[in-house]
């Protein structure tokens, strides 16, 4: 189970870093757009709307990796006093709860994606189709839910082995 968690962390890191490169791309695009607008009065069309859609990818692509590496903020004011085994069980239960929430978010986002697909929804100004962006974002949210399941199973396995 531990190796599954390690493998999952490794692969989701690649996805997260992919999002990181996208962020770098957005930064360069934004700078280029601002400079071209200022000096040549010729901004790059669609920068604003593309940045918005890409930002969602940056965020959700990093969700599975952040969950698997305990990147989310929690408070161990009380639980820190429990036995290591009890703490591991709590980590597992909490990971399952997170999996349920992200599962719900992914499912609802999936319904939204279906709706956008049916209505061929686009951004307002540049008419960029939203579907190609929301589908990977939804998949990343689902992957984050799965990541939490893996984390929970690994925690339970650790607790049982103690």
């Amino acid at each position: 189970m531990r190796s599954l968690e390690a493998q999952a962390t490794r692969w989701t890191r690649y996805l997260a870093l992919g999002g990181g490169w996208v962020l770098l791309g957005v930064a360069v695009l934004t700078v280029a757009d601002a400079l071209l607008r200022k000096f040549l009065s010729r901004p790059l069309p669609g920068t604003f709307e593309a940045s918005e859609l890409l930002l969602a990818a940056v965020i959700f692509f990093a969700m599975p990796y952040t969950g698997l590496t305990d990147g989310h903020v929690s408070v161990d004011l009380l639980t820190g006093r429990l036995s290591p085994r009890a703490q591991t069980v709590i980590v597992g239960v909490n990971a399952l709860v997170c999996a349920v929430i992200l599962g719900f978010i992914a499912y609802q986002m999936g319904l939204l994606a279906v709706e956008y697909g049916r209505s061929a929804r686009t951004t307002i100004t540049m008419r960029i189709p939203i579907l190609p962006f929301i589908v990977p974002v939804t998949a990343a949210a689902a992957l984050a839910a799965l990541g939490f399941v893996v984390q929970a199973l690994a925690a339970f396995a650790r607790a049982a082995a103690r």
Partner: protein
Amino acid sequence: MSPITISLLGFIALLALILARLPIAAAMAIVGVGGTAAIAGWPAALATLRQGPFERASSYTLLIIPLFIFMGYLASQAGLSQGLFRAAHVWLGHRRGGLAMATVAGCAGFGAICGSSVATGATMCSVALPEMRRYRYADSLSTGCIAAGGTLGIMVPPSIIFVLYGIMTEQSIGKLLMSGVLPGLVETLLFIVAIALVTAWWPSLGAPAPRATWGEALRATRDIWEVGVLFAVVIGGIYGGLATPAESAAFGAVGALAFGLARRRLTWRGLVEALDQTVRTTAMVFFIVIGADLFGYFMALSQMPMQLAAGLSALQVKPFVVLWAIIVTYIVLGALMDELAMILLTVPIFFPVVTALGYDPIWFGVVIVVVVQIGLIAPPVGLNVFVIGGIARDVPMVTIYRGIMPFLAAMIVLLAVLAAWPGLALLLPSQMR
């Protein structure tokens, strides 16, 4: 059950889930969706999950957050923090407690290119702590000044807290960022005064280092020109109205990358590391933002914030009594929970109260940042103290907490100064175009 009762039960449930170590973002999301369902039914609650997260994650105003985070990590990987500390070292190091003063000044400088207190604290810790150890500084002073100095990262612009506050309260992010400049400078001075007083009383805490020559001092100062350029581009762009905050942040991130590559200090590994840390922090922040959105929707539906504001406004007490009660509540909350979550959770509740009492929203933003700074170092849950403790593993937490006390006092003095003279926060924003 009335919506107000449901909202109070929601708060109790939220606290219980947070104390059970559930990630704060998840706790807010569960209570938010559950509370909305209790008031308006499940279809309405599920609808918040459908639209909310994607819309929030694809909002242009929030692009500024990952870009500022990226800029900070790139600057750290590019070694800009070392130059800052060296420059402060040559001017202040020969004084009693001088290296601690240099650390604080270095933190303020790094805060000018980094929007996060944890990143500022952690970055300066790796640079300043070994140097202070070399001169046998007391662990309490050396770790305390880094933990407290790190919090300058969110007061001196750029600052993630100001950005989030601006988005939640629909205030100008540019004005909010500028409002942190003067209080940030005054706070840095207050920290330096605190160090001077402490080391005057207990000289063994921080012995003076040898005085640098004029040549060394000038060289070290010249070496930090990149930081000056980055700050001028980012903050100057916002102040002068030349660029939107998101564009300025993009210039900052690309600029930090360019300087790192030009100096040959930013390696491939360093860049990947900066990307790794940036996206992890971004996902953490946005999960909390999404959770807070869901919780905020529930709060708005319950009408609790509005009723609280109306009730407090009707009380026959002076506005500053209510304000200080809110500040004390923040300090207590900040000592117990994560600051980001605290802001996102409480600002929708307290902001209507504060504005109804006639206080300036920008000024209140600065007050919020100071109380967040206090929360970041105050026991028992001081995030910055934990981070520094994680790096300086041989120093007990109690020692770090002892070390932050003079800085805590300085922060309270700053709050009093802000209360007495709001112009400290409002002067620069009022001059903006």
